[in-house]
């Protein structure tokens, strides 16, 4: 981008401020959706690039590397516009963070489809738009869940409302007619919402979204099945998901479960000693009607399947099941859980099927050993998705806060990404700042270029890590 004076920038981007972020070319705060339209319309064709930011730092992926783009800060669009218990849906703006959702939703008898203990200050909409895996796989019908409809500002300055929210009628008129922006497809012959997903804002800036919510169970119990290896727990996962018996359901290794549970650093050694090498974390629930019976039936299924696979149900420390459930049903408390082991972390995530997860775990251990990375700083989190049809495998590379440690972790992640891609890991969304060989194939590149040319022909939005509409 051509260097410009502050005056020029203010002229091109109304409300522009230099900002303190060295990774950007200043910031502009949007307070309404109309502000976003105005910012985009002005910037379009001026050569200024924009990238969206929905919530507080640290930002994992947004517009990675595009230090020349102006940040459009959407954190002040933070209204929860609607919580609708009857239709199990909420309508939120991008600045609504996970910590702001728990209480109002619970008051309405609902809960959000949370990722695993997200950062409290993370934009919920941004996480869901990025297809961040959530912890209740049986309620994930489509990989885009829980997102339903979105309202996006395109690079042309137009707004595009998707799904049943598109119309006919304003939101208010739809509400009056009993509609709650529940239909995720269309309008018409395309699934517009999917074109904004995992795009890091390169296709459009989403100014609100309707999102599926879950009924708050009246009884819920957390369970941990422990084993010395991953394989039997994978088997149990398949079976309990097939029986629809568990709500929360994910797999973690010992260090990662310790990260989640040991909120206070001094408890870490005792927690670590008490958890198994591999853990399947689950919850059983009863909703409203005959809740206890339903819950108990699920517990029976879990017990039977755990026993059949030769694993054991263990008491989750510290504070038992209630404490574990409390942790899992909320954003991370205290120090962010992924940072607890060493002060900072790097995540590497991709998709595969559950039966292949073990192979990738072996690969990660081998890579870490080959790279001379401290083995105890590796963590494994496997999140079943789409009711067990696929999963996200996440490797956590924990490291100290300093630059050198960070760059070391980055090079391990790069090596691991390359190896995993070579044996079939599917990187369905880009990794911040880690190249994945062969990620954008000719077919994908061609598709992305055509969509970009349609929604953002002047490339006003930053290309993101996938390089959508970028010069190279």
């Amino acid at each position: 981008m051509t260097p410009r004076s502050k005056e020029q920038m203010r002229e091109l981007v109304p409300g522009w401020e230099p900002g303190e972020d060295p990774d950007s070319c200043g910031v502009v705060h949007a307070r309404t959706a109309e502000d976003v339209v105005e910012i985009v319309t002005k910037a379009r064709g001026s050569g200024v690039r924009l990238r969206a930011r929905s919530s507080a730092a640290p930002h994992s992926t947004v517009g990675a590397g595009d230090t020349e783009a102006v940040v459009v800060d959407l954190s002040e669009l933070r209204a929860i516009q609607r919580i609708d218990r009857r239709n199990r849906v909420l309508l939120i703006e991008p600045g609504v963070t996970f910590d702001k959702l728990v209480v109002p939703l619970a008051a309405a008898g609902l809960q959000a489809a949370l990722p695993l203990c997200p950062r409290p200050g993370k934009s919920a909409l941004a996480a869901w738009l990025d297809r961040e895996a959530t912890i209740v796989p049986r309620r994930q019908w489509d990989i885009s869940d829980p997102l339903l409809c979105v309202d996006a500002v395109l690079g042309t300055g137009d707004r595009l409302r998707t799904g049943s929210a598109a119309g006919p009628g304003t939101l208010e008129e739809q509400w009056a007619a009993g509609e709650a922006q529940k239909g995720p497809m269309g309008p018409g012959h395309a699934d517009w919402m999917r074109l904004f997903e995992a795009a890091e804002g390169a296709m459009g800036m989403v100014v609100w979204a309707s999102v599926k919510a879950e009924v708050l169970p009246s009884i819920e119990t957390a369970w941990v099945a422990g084993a010395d290896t991953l394989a039997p727990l994978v088997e149990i996962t398949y079976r309990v998901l097939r029986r629809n018996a568990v709500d929360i359901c994910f797999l973690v290794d010992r260090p990662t479960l310790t990260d989640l549970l040991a909120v206070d650093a001094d408890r870490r050694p005792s927690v670590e000693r008490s958890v198994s090498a591999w853990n399947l974390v689950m919850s059983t629930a009863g909703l409203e009607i005959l809740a206890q019976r339903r819950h108990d039936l699920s517990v029976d299924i879990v017990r039977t399947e755990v026993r059949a696979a030769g694993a054991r149900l263990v008491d989750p420390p510290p504070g038992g099941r209630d404490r574990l459930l409390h942790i899992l049903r909320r954003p991370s408390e205290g120090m962010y859980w992924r940072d607890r082991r060493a002060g900072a972390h790097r995540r590497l995530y991709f998709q595969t099927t559950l039966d292949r997860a073990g192979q990738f775990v072996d690969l990660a251990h081998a890579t870490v050993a080959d790279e001379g990375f401290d083995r105890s700083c590796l963590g494994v989190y496997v999140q079943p998705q789409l009711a067990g049809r696929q999963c996200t495998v996440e490797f956590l590379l924990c490291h100290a806060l300093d630059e050198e440690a960070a760059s070391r972790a980055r090079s391990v992640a790069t090596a691991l990404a390359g190896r995993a891609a070579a044996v079939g890991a599917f990187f369905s969304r880009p990794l911040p700042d880690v190249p994945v060989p062969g990620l954008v194939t000719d077919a994908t590149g061609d598709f992305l270029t055509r969509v970009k040319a349609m929604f953002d022909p002047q490339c006003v939005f930053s290309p993101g890590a996938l390089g959508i509409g970028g010069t190279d």
Partner: protein
Amino acid sequence: MSIVGVNDKQADPNVTDAERDERRAEVAAGLSRVVGARWVATDPAVLDTYTWQYTAEAITGSNWMQRPLAVAMPADTDEVAAIVRLCNTEGIQFKAISTGFGAWGAATEPDRVVLLDLRRMNRILEVDAKNMYAVVEPYVTANQLQVEVLPHGLNTHVAGCGAQHSVLASATSVMGQGWDGVSMGFSGRNLLAVEWVTPEGEIVRSGSVDASGEWFSGDGPGPSMRGIFRGYAGAFSGLGVFTKAAVKLYPWAGPGHLEVTGSNPDYMATIPEHHVAAVCVVDGWDQMAELGYRVADAEIATFMSRNAPSLMSGVLTADNNTFADLYGVPLFHEMLYALVIVITAESAEERDLKVDMLKAILSDLGGGMLANLGGPEEVRWLMRAVRVLARRIGPGDLIRSVPGAVRMLVRDARRFGLGRLSEYLPSFMYMATVTSGLNIRGVFRFGGTFWTAMGSLVSWDNAIHGAKVGAQVKRKYIDKGVIFDDGADNAWGGFYEGGTYAHLEELACYDPTDKDAADAVFEYVFETNLVSIEHHTGLPINAVGPANSALFGPHCSSYDTWQDRIKASFDPHNTADGSFYVEPDFTPNERMVAGAENVTSDRAPIDPNAPDL
């Protein structure tokens, strides 16, 4: 899908018959080089078998669609791609069909379209039972896949048209409503990775299959290709040809195959152990709304749909006389507010729990049910259902119901044996929903055909709102005597993804040989489309194709203009026939304009707050 908004075009008057035949021969020669002469048809007698199509009369005013230039039957993806490239070079269009159920699989312009009949691509390529998906070619039917996967303890979503439809066509290219949506979703949302021959003839694989050869995901890297080609409606072949598709399978807590006795049209399924089929009866739309929401919240139904008395009577009977008998029984005629719910379970304990939950909901709503509960329970809940209906119809009609009901029972005892009499209703409902096997007779028999309207994918409350206003539009056409009198409210529909969204479409049965009826259905569709806009009932099932995109676009974020851009970008030479999708040079024909004028000059009166029927 839409029958308003599809432009039936005329042959180019400047082309002589001889020139046309020469062109046909040239193209056939090119096609023969790709697939072999044996798999190319140009004989008019063969070509015309592809033109006699369901709902053609509402589009063209005759029972025929247009004759294709040729039909080719490719054996694999490479042949499909070669044909598409040939069409690009020759400046002609192509359209793919898999199972070919209706007018949307036919040409709308004479002698310009090569039909790709994909029936040779009929293999189930993979069933990954562990990861619950199957990879299929275009001509694999839902029935075929269901038979294959039930023994694995899995099931597949079947669209409401009946289980002979192509799984791939439904998932990639057209709609996806069905009776099982509450537990098995909507076709387009069940799609994982695909293999796609683009309108320019490139072979593209989406998602994980592109990255690693595995079919479990169709989304990414980054934005999903599904966003371009699927949507709510599908592209109806207007954006290329899908040659392989991975679809989600769902857990099936039932036997490896279903026991059916009898023979067509009098067959009956044995409801498997731990399964319950129930017709749950409440009083009025408000209670229907409650019932739907509560059952969905409780997560107990594997199948859940609304079937009005006319449809249900049609499904339960095998001929029109018997139908008239049954439909004439006031007790049955007034069973308007009912949901058919099928519960499946792995154990007696699970079944009992789910049934008790259903009872709790129905008790709370003062409802009843006709279900295979067995013993006194069955009678008790049946009596509750009769009480609900008796309140609606009053004592006089209750008494008048007795002779008809007895006649029906005697007849069915003769058909199936006295011992199975109590199973009869639940068994039929079970079969109709689980295999999607009997429902279609509930709409075709009365006039010979049917079409449908309203039916947006929206919240259940909004779907009900749509059903109410849709019935009022239909009443106008019933009163004119041009469509079958099914009581006006014949809204069929169901729930999807655990009740996240729902649909109710207003069926209209008519005689396809009656010109007035064909015109009336065209107008009915247009009028219900207008009502959907005016009463905010969502984008209806007929919001498909160029004219309707132009009608709805301005009310819905101008999505029509973005669709045009997709078509222009991905099909720059307009080689894929987009007559049911996007047509760059679309102009409404005279029939369309006349129909629209008729409607606007004589609108049905609508009262959105009208009391229940």
